[in-house]
């Protein structure tokens, strides 16, 4: 009996907590329980959620990518630079950003598998490198139409409407102009990563590499190649996040992206606890991001100051980690 209760708690505890939270905020915060409000939550988690899915891919191969926040803000600056200063089209800007993300992921991966640099250190180095690099072309200035260039000219380019559409367009769904494009992209990325990790041979091999690299190598899995691929997935998803950020802001804002990194790592770790998975998984990550988003939206609606929000975010993360590492280990018994 006791074991069954524990099992149930591990499996559904987090989802039940989520439901309780939604009910509480619906009663306590006016305007919380409306379709628009639900969409706001989705929109506010879309970007960190996409980044978190990338983190998940690296966590699966027992790696870690600290550079995703910097990749996202680099993509933000690169897209602005490409459209505003070089006057490229939206398509070129998007391709450049995705390529940048893939290349950064490739370099991260090669540093880790070829040069044997520990993953945290390699991606930490990459993070600093990118934070600096993204500021070099504009001498540390943000990019906007009409900015003065060094040679006395003025930047004539602008964010193209097609690019802004990626961040701002909203599709009709029962209500006019309801679902924003970033939410759709978030859902698509989530489903793709979920299917890839959970239901393809490649994904399963990646989990195998994550749980025992030597064993996976001995049975013939190309361990290094999969690790590099994981970092490339992470780089590309971070670049997608950066593109959406740029499309929402409509300018190239310099930012370190550290908060994006921390929030997305938190979402991925909270995801461990969802459905008692006790391992990185795309579904959990998406729920984890949503959990944090709902919490922050509800608290903001109730006028809670920002520091209580950080506090609660931390508390949720600690609770999730307890779920994952303590309860799950008890369930599977000692020796796991």
């Amino acid at each position, binding site marked *: 009996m006791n074991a069954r209760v524990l099992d149930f708690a591990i499996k559904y505890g987090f989802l039940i907590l989520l439901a309780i939270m939604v009910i509480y905020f619906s009663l306590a915060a006016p305007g919380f329980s409306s379709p628009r409000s639900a969409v706001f939550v989705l929109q506010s988690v879309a970007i960190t959620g996409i980044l978190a899915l990338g983190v998940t891919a690296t966590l699966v191969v027992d790696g870690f990518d600290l550079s995703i926040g910097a990749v996202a803000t680099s993509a933000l600056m690169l897209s602005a630079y490409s459209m505003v200063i070089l006057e490229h089209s939206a398509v070129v800007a998007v391709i450049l950003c995705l390529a940048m993300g893939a290349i950064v992921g490739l370099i991260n991966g090669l540093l880790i598998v070829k040069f044997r640099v520990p993953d945290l250190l390699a991606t930490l180095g990459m993070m600093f490198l990118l934070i600096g690099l993204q500021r070099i072309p504009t001498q540390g200035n943000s990019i*906007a139409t009409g900015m003065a260039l060094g040679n006395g000219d003025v930047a004539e380019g602008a964010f193209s409407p097609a690019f802004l559409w990626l961040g701002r367009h909203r599709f009709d769904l029962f209500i006019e102009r309801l679902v924003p494009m970033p939410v759709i992209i978030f859902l698509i990325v989530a489903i793709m990563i979920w299917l890839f990790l959970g239901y393809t041979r490649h994904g399963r091999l990646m989990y195998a590499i994550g749980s025992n690299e030597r064993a996976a190598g001995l049975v013939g899995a190309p361990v290094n190649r999969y690790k590099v691929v994981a970092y490339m997935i992470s780089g590309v998803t971070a670049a997608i996040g950066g593109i959406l950020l740029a499309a929402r802001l409509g300018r190239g804002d310099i930012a370190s992206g550290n908060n994006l990194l921390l929030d997305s790592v938190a979402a991925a770790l909270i995801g461990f606890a969802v459905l008692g998975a006790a391992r990185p998984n795309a579904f959990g990550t998406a729920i984890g991001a949503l959990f944090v988003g709902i919490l922050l939206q509800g608290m903001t609606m109730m006028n809670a100051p920002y520091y209580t929000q950080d506090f609660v975010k931390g508390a949720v993360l600690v609770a999730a980690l307890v779920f994952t590492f303590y309860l799950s280990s008890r369930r599977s018994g000692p020796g796991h």
Partner: protein
Amino acid sequence: MLRRHFIAFTAAAVTALSAGTASADMPAPFDNPEEVSIALVRYLSTGDFFQAYLSGVESQAAALGVDLRVFDSRQDAALQADMVDQAIALNVDGIIIQHGLTESMKEAAQRAVDAGIKVVAFDVNVENEAIPQIEQSDYLLGRMALDQALADNGNAFTAGYVYVPGIAPLDRRDVAWKEVQAENPDITEAAVFGTLDNPIANSVANQARAVLQANPTINVVFAPYDEFAKGVKIAVDEAGLTDDIDIYSADISTADISAMREPGSAWVTTVATNPAVVGEVSVRALALMLAGDNPGASVVVPPTLITQDFLNEQDIKNMDDLGAKMPQFQHADVAMADWMPLPAR
């Protein structure tokens, strides 16, 4: 008229600088400006404001013909104090302390004064009578924006307020908000929110979306920092409330100008001092001290009210246009002397 003279003079000075003969009219020690060196010791450096401030310091230093060294502590308070000691060791003639913490800078500043170095401080109180304070009046920034809000909306409106306590300039702007609230009891403060999670505009936009949903009666948002205003504007646009809400803010940049000028933009007013001008004033105040004058204990750079209508009427696209159409934004007539060369425009 006088200014034009200076501009002509400066232009001549800049061309003649390499020959080192620019300084005929300037008092000692600027009769040999290439032998004068000043140091800028920075605490904050990332972002448009600080970039523009640096460019102002550089251009005024170049106009004077002095040697400028820039020390950047990147928000490391202890390192900033060490950098003052480095500057002392390098035998500079003057030091500008740009931001920092009173606790860590007070003693370092005193050591510089003891070493016979002239020191000015921008936006940090080092509690030293020998050190003039350069300030952009944050209180006035807030007050002027709110006066415009009162003029536009009457003295009874429902406000959202974006504020993060503990940040010195925001705290000083907050004084103006408290004061206006006390004077106008019919102003309802429906919500206070704000965060400095970066990218700030994106995080504030997420919060503002929730706040506007929860408080549909808000018709004025006071966001006394341009990143806040940008975030609120994104939320207002996304919620389709552009006609119902007016945003009043402080600070300005080229990107802000384009955001304010978007068709139907809710961001109607901002109040700003030109950070480049503040940089120039910092150098001029230091130059006055080096020449034996006294710029006064506090040198305040007055802010300018900038409305959306003005930007549209004058077709202003960037900071250069703004300076050209609004002379008081381009140059502040403080810390001036007859002999002082101004940067070429």
